[in-house]
């Protein structure tokens, strides 16, 4: 089954409910027609219907249980005016929590309900107002290298550096109260992807001074910080681009991946010219940006149709302005607004945003000077959320949401953020292409066994002196399968477990006397379930 079909699973659900009265949609008609033409494959239709039925269970996961029995969702006209507290349905509110966090907990859903849609979104957007001292303290205590300057980092052993960045990142994703901020840190980490193995300690600086500093700021500021980041200049070889001997790697990727997009209207000649414009952008000392005039090509260039006249080399350090001007041109380009909007829509809303959605967000980008919070407000509207199909969690998202569900006592995350993430296939900062870990379903589906085994690993952590500890006693004390299932539902699904799954969990608990191990396994199966892989 194709990606678009899967991505549109929820739409198909709605289609079934509505179209049964109105006649078959074109999609359905094609399905039927192709089936009629190929009677030798009768299983395909059954298979499709089965998948849709399952997707329905998953798609309605955020809804209240009473609502979960419905097939169709409310029509747009029935909705009350969005924005006012209490006016948005609980279903949509839960969808919002799923989109702005790395896993909806009961506490977070409760907070959203009491604040209402708009206030809750504003609360998450104004993240500096969210007190997060427990997280800050944990990171400062366990990951002191994150606060170090370049020379100190340089003198620190590689393993220590990357381990602490893994630990801090995973801890923050799981336990920070600034959940939307951390989700955007994850997004920009992929957008400005840098492989730790290639650049070492410089990535620790980039994480702090580029990604985390500007994740909910303005895109132009973020891009410029990245363009001045030693880690990026090293990763994409601009440090090796000197004089007439240029390396085009960064010049290409800043257009293809960071701003315009691959079909963003530039030519190979523009890549070559931009690489010449950016000669001399390099590193000084341990982790400082520098423009080195002795490495700059002062001859004339033409970039995106504009002339950069030749300069005398006596201009010296002022020639950095050529690069600044080129970057401003990229930031003002309409295709940058569209490309960034498309990627943010994909991340926050759905795999297949429509052109009109992209255009609408691009308008916000243009009007606000690339203000990321303003774009998020325009993306995460009740109307958009109501229509958005579920996305599949990436392995890291799965791992983090499992931590949020189990809420173990954490001593360190050395195993979880290193070996366990490696087994899941998404070692942080180790994607070896500059485009970041993929945000799609097909790429990650093959890791399902690793997810089941991670769930087993996490829920079996019983030692009070272990790295993480899952205290199962409160669950066991509930004594009956029904009561334990109810509590698992609250922990793993914030109270919105699909009822079929509820039955299966309860059945597993009933199949043997209640014991700590049995309950751990039931919890593991809840995390392993199909429904928990989606958000």
């Amino acid at each position: 089954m194709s990606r678009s079909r899967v991505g549109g699973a929820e739409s198909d659900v709605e289609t079934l409910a509505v179209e049964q009265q109105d006649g078959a949609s074109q999609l359905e008609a094609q399905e039927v027609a192709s089936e009629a033409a190929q009677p030798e494959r009768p299983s395909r239709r059954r298979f499709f219907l089965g998948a849709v039925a399952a997707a329905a269970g998953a798609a309605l996961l955020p809804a209240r249980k009473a609502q979960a029995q419905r097939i169709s969702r409310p029509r747009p006209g029935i909705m009350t005016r969005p924005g006012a507290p209490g006016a948005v349905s609980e279903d949509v509110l839960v969808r919002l929590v799923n989109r702005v966090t790395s896993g909806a907990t009961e506490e977070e859903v409760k907070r959203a309900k009491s604040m209402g849609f708009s206030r809750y979104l504003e609360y998450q957007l104004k993240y500096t107002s969210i007190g997060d001292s427990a997280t800050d303290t944990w990171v400062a205590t366990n990951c002191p290298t994150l606060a170090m300057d370049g020379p100190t980092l340089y003198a620190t052993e590689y393993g220590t550096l990357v381990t602490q960045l893994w630990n801090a990142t995973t801890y923050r994703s799981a336990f920070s109260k600034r959940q939307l901020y951390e989700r955007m840190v994850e997004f920009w980490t992929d957008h400005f992807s840098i492989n730790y193995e290639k650049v070492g300690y410089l990535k620790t600086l980039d994480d702090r001074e580029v990604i985390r500093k500007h994740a909910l700021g303005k895109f132009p500021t973020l891009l410029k910080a990245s363009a001045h980041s030693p880690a990026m200049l090293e990763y994409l070889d601009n440090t090796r681009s000197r004089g007439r001997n240029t390396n085009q790697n960064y010049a290409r990727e800043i257009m293809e991946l960071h701003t315009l997009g691959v079909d963003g209207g530039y030519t190979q000649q523009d890549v070559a010219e931009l690489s010449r414009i950016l000669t001399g952008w390099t590193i000084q000392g341990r982790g400082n940006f520098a423009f080195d005039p002795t490495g700059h090509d002062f001859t004339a260039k033409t970039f995106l149709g504009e002339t950069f006249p030749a300069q005398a080399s006596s201009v010296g350090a002022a020639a950095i302005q050529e690069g600044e001007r080129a970057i401003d041109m990229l930031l003002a380009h309409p295709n940058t607004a569209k490309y960034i909007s498309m990627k943010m829509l994909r991340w926050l809303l759905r795999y297949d945003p429509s052109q009109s959605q992209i255009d609408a967000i691009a308008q916000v980008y243009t009007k606000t000077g690339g203000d990321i919070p303003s774009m998020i407000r325009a993306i995460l509207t009740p109307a958009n959320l109501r229509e958005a199909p579920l996305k599949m969690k990436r392995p890291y998202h799965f791992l983090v949401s499992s931590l949020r569900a189990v809420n173990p006592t954490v001593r360190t995350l050395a195993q979880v953020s290193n070996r366990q993430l490696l087994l899941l296939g998404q070692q942080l900062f180790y994607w070896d292409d500059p485009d970041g870990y993929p945000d799609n379903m097909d790429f990650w589906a093959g890791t399902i066994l690793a997810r089941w085994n991670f769930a087993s690993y996490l829920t079996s952590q019983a030692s009070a002196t272990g790295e993480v500890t899952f205290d199962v006693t409160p669950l066991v004390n509930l004594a009956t399968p029904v009561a334990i299932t109810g509590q698992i539902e609250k922990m793993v699904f914030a109270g919105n477990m699909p009822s079929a799954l509820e039955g299966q969990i309860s059945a597993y608990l009933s199949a043997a006397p209640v014991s700590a191990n049995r309950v751990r396994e039931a919890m593991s199966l809840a995390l392993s379930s199909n429904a928990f892989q989606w958000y």
Partner: protein
Amino acid sequence: MTMHDEDCGCDEYNELSRRQFIADSAGMSGLAMFASVFPSWLPKVVLSESYVADRDVIISIFLRGGADGLSMCVPFGDTNYYTGRPTIAIPRPDSTATATRGIALDDFFALPRAMQALVPAYQAGQLLVVHATGSVDPTRSHFDAQKFIEVGKPRDPNIVTGWLGRHLATVPPMRTDAPLRALGFASGLQKTLVGGPKTLPISDPATFGISGATATRTERTNWLKSEYGPAPEPLRSSSLDALNTIELLRLVNITGYAPANGAVYPNNGVGRALRSAAALIKADIGIEAAQVDVGGWDTHATQDPVNPGGAMYNNMLNLANALGAFHADVIAGPTTTNVTVVLISEFGRNVRENSARGTDHGRGNCMFLMGRNISGGRVYTFNWPGLAMENLQDRQDLKVTLDHRDVLAEIVKNRLGNQNLDVVFPGYVPTMRGVTK
């Protein structure tokens, strides 16, 4: 104005292998991919039904870190080798140093003593060494050079799948019902295999499966099977493949596997991987490809390929003993399945040794091919450039005179029965060099 430390990443290889550090995988791409990832640029594909019965299984071995090919296939006939390496050269086969001298392959090249276990394969005409080969891209970055070889094309950001993965995606399975067509011996799938249908990273096939208590394993497995039976794609297929693979591997007695011809696999990483691969191949369950990584080749200091106990000596010994066992067991053994083994590394190393009795990152290197249908028993070169200073790349390295893709493409075409070379190696028109029979 100074650059910060060079991009070679060598410090880390020396003091603490990053790859060991990050648990046990050498394949950092770390991705198990789903079958349907056909890149949009994929040209039209011919799913040929021919050759199927005659196709070889392929074992692809990557020596990570830049293995010193001048120690593994020694050009003893070139005096520049000895002048460039006063302390780490393998003595000539006619040297009086009988314990450490090379084993002549012809009148110019020799195997080091550490790789003696490969002599039977060479004498049987089933081992071919190709020299002065490698990637045409001049990078000396491990990171980039490994990637370029694994994806099959240098510096093309649009290609994210591996050459072997694309091969698998463009031939029909050897067994249509096989739940597992290829495996990477790693925690995360190596880039070489990315894009392959029914391809999984499996660190140890003997223990692959659902973790947790043995007593409830069947019960939990059945629970998951029923939970995912009606799940939406792509999770449904993916979970079924995983569960079927677990079932399948349980049927193969890997732990109790008895090699043929009295072959003894060394108990090291590559030895265990090749032993498992042999067991899977003989079980005839439809495995078509396996990727094995061997690390520890980034020998910037105290390289010592000469003396027993030396760092590179030991690494070559472990490798050659494992390959020798695989040759005796599978290639010279009774199984009717043909297997081609191919070894490659991201680049060779400098002709001259450095001040630390090691060698730094170079260019041209050798590849090893093994199999019944390999035109072996010889060292193949194309315009061997020699080691004289004026003939070296950047006045320091053996030149690449033969694109490694020529070698791989010929294997793909002649031994793996795949005509879609423009998909496996996009944008490259290979020259057939006669490495296969």
